[in-house]
């Protein structure tokens, strides 16, 4: 697998903005002194008149974006997930969410894959925070290809969107002819009958690796890429529940409030079956290289494989 192309989803975001800036003259981008890291710098270089560096003031950025959106602009605001959704939560809720304004919160550095910066910069609550806001769409692309598609989808949707992006280079898994992105529609990457593994973001790759290991043990797992967490593809979740009888969710996020919770909300309402939530188990992250963190938090292929086996009692 070492020859697989690896690119960070934030890179896709920056490139997509710069491309789409041509087509959408009302596209405006804001950042809070992290343009080099969130990759909005690519847009800034090309469209300096439509880029605002707001300085280190995320709350002000979110509310200013709301003001801009009242005049018909499509506004993307970026920072690290921790500060975009944590520091500016209430501004996003009240200035953007309540009036349902056309602002896209595209945050990089989501999850533990941030790596060495440690707990203060590893946001494990962003999906939970954004999912709580009525009318907010939440998308977590799994790779470079999907992140680009998600930026276009965010523009096509009139209303607030949260887009979670990552810092680290991750394998490109969607680079194929028939790839199609539809907001709110999960993707069955592999059919199976014993258990369904529903993953999001960079954990989709982990799920695919786990699937190979499970197959070697004679376990036939269905693998789903749930790139949109809200609105959740409930039809697909129920379909998986009926077909395999067991579901495992996998995310680089707290098990409280993220993909796992969204799936459980659906399952307990529509078709109750056992669900296991693989993710960060209500603890803070810590400093270490990305790969080691994914391994130690059991979110790499091996970790997911082991946890699915434990869940199945095998």
């Amino acid at each position: 697998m070492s020859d697989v192309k690896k690119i960070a989803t934030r890179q896709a975001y920056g490139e997509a903005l710069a491309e789409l800036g041509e087509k959408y003259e009302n596209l405006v981008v804001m950042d809070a002194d992290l343009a080099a890291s969130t990759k909005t710098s690519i847009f800034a270089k090309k469209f300096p008149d439509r880029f605002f560096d707001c300085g280190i003031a995320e709350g002000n950025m979110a509310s200013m974006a709301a003001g801009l959106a009242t005049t018909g602009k499509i506004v993307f605001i970026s920072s690290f997930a921790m500060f975009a959704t944590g520091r500016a939560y209430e501004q996003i809720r009240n200035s953007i969410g309540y009036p349902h304004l056309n602002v896209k919160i595209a945050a990089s550095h989501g999850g533990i894959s941030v790596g060495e910066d440690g707990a203060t910069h590893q946001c494990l609550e962003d999906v939970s925070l954004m999912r709580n806001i009525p009318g907010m769409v939440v998308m977590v692309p799994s790779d470079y290809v999907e992140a680009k598609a998600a930026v276009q989808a965010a523009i096509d949707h009139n209303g607030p969107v949260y887009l979670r992006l990552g810092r680290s280079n991750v394998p490109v898994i969607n680079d194929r002819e028939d790839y199609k992105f539809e907001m709110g529609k999960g993707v069955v990457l592999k059919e199976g009958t014993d258990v369904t593994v529903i993953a999001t973001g960079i954990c989709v790759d982990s799920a695919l690796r786990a699937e190979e290991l499970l197959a070697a043990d004679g376990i036939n797992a269905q693998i789903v890429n749930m790139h949109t967490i809200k609105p959740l593809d409930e039809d697909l979740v129920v379909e998986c529940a009926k077909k395999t009888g067991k579901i495992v969710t996998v995310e680089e996020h707290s098990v409280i409030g993220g993909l796992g919770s969204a799936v459980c909300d659906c399952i307990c309402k529509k078709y109750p079956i056992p669900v296991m939530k693989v993710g960060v188990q209500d603890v803070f992250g810590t400093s270490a290289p990305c790969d080691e963190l994914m391994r130690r938090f059991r979110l790499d292929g091996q970790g997911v494989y082991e946890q699915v086996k434990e869940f199945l009692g095998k």
Partner: protein
Amino acid sequence: MENLELQKLANKVRQGVIISTHAAKSGHPGGSLSAADIFTYLYFEEMNVDPSNPKDSDRDRFVLSKGHTAPGLYSTLALKGYFPFEDLTTLRQWGSYLQGHPDMKSTPGVDMSTGSLGQGISAAVGIALAARMDHKDYRVYTLLGDGETEEGQVWEAAMYAGFKKLDNLCVIVDNNNLQIDGNIENVCSPYPIDKKFEAFNFHVVKADAHDFDSLREAFEEARMTKGCPTAIICKSVKGKGVSFMEDQAGWHGVAPNDEQKEAALEELRKAGEALCQM
């Protein structure tokens, strides 16, 4: 418009504040009354707005950063013709388009949803940025409470507006010197407010919130000021116009009961009649 006409309108704005908060049995009369003359001046003299075309992209914008004084704004919008004055009695009731705090989705004439202090000024800065980007010459006004300036976000917004030299932005501070917990000097003094705005590269003007000559002079100065935003610090009296509410922190967020409503309206009607005899 003559000052006398503005005074008559402000008197009616105040009556609307009493009528609506009484009907709602809740709301914020104190700060609505202190800002009544400012609302009146903005909507009947200063701003280029048309109630028959509330979404006109060239209109001047107003963001009520101190969103809790919605009764004052609603009363003004009703008198201006955005919706019927009688509807003020639906304030804060189930199904009403007059929410407890301004909601741009439901109320004609409301340019931005506000209520959480400190956020409105940022939104106003965003709108002012948009005007500049679009080469439009509309102006953006935002009204803050003096207690509201205790919010750090106010100064993030001021820093950015000053830095960007947004001379199409006019920040107004309703300086009635009272917040819920008492005198602002005793709670967490934001003074000197004028020096703070100056430090953030604003042109600062002081005005008497209850004197239309003073307001006229201040807003004209703001309009003439180029190369930086203007902050108008308006010295005001909380509860202005209803003697038993004046300068009382207790009337920040309490509605008048039946008796108090009658007393307040009688006082305002008398003041209104006196204006008509001038």
